[in-house]
């Protein structure tokens, strides 16, 4: 059983289990599945309420979301230790080839560790991938009112037009950076 669980899980399994998280949270306590709101709750919990009206609300009522994200961290730990898979991610050959041409050299882990490491934070390239990228995730998800979970999964599954528009914009933004910007960053 453990051996079976250690293999990478196929996309239909992941899709069904992620999809079921939505009704599970609704039925456990009327909670809409969404993760980027945790950024706001953490800011609201750490900053004085006078900082900005956006952080002045009863974040304690949203504590469940913080329990949820701590759970994700623990889940990540379990998946990478007890259930760890020693094999590299089996990505499409064409993707691997494209990334090698750009200059990615590390393919043995979940992340390209030549880009995502503390040392690369001191390089312009690493700074863009890690710090600028992180900033855009925090600023963008809050401005858009949700992320992949809140809009692309919860919102779309509830037939919200705004979520469809947001999801299309997530994808357009990703295509632009992948095709036009990332090749330039690798030249830095």
């Amino acid at each position: 059983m453990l051996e079976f669980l250690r293999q990478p899980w196929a996309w239909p399994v992941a899709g069904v289990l992620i999809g079921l998280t939505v009704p599970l949270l609704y039925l456990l306590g009327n909670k809409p599945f969404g993760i980027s709101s945790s950024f706001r709750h953490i800011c609201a919990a750490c900053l004085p309420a006078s900082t900005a009206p956006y952080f002045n609300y009863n974040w304690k009522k949203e504590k469940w979301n913080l329990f949820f994200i701590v759970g994700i961290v623990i889940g990540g730990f379990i998946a990478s230790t007890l259930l760890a898979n020693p094999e590299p991610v089996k990505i499409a050959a064409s993707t691997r080839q494209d990334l090698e041409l750009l200059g990615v050299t590390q393919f043995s882990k979940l992340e390209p560790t030549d880009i995502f490491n503390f040392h690369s934070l001191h390089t312009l390239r690493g700074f863009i991938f890690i710090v600028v990228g992180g900033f855009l995730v925090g600023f963008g998800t809050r401005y858009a009112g949700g992320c992949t979970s809140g809009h692309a999964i919860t919102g779309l599954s509830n037939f919200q037009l705004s979520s469809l528009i947001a999801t299309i914009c997530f994808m357009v933004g990703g295509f632009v950076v992948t095709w036009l910007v990332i090749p330039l960053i690798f030249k830095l």
Partner: protein
Amino acid sequence: MEEEGKNHQQASESFVSNLKYLLVGIFFGIVFVKSEVVSWFRIQEMFRLQAFFMYGVIGTAVVVAAISGIIIKKFKIKTLQGEEVVFSERPFDKGNIIGGLLFGFGWALTGACPGPIYGLIGSGFLVFIAVLASALFGTFVYGLLREKLPH
């Protein structure tokens, strides 16, 4: 606080009661990492249109969640506390477009949306703590500028 991501439960919850969301998070984190959707490589495959994998995951999740939602509505299934499930409406505003594009840029760079950031930290990719710190800073700046931005 506006509707998005809002807790709709009327009954208040204790620390112990909140632990069930910790368990859901653990389950979810395991799924995220074991299916490799947290991987930068998988996000690159998706944006390069070179694999169906991520489209399959997200598409299946949306269909499963939508069917579950329809069942909950049709049979008026109540929450554990006996409350009616609230499916919040998300009115459109310009942030869906501008913020959506900005998040898309960040998603392609970091290869991680918010859930995977937490999953990767747990998996030992500790540099994602820097990604998280930057994301929190981005949220802070958004909070300060919010009134001045088009919505």
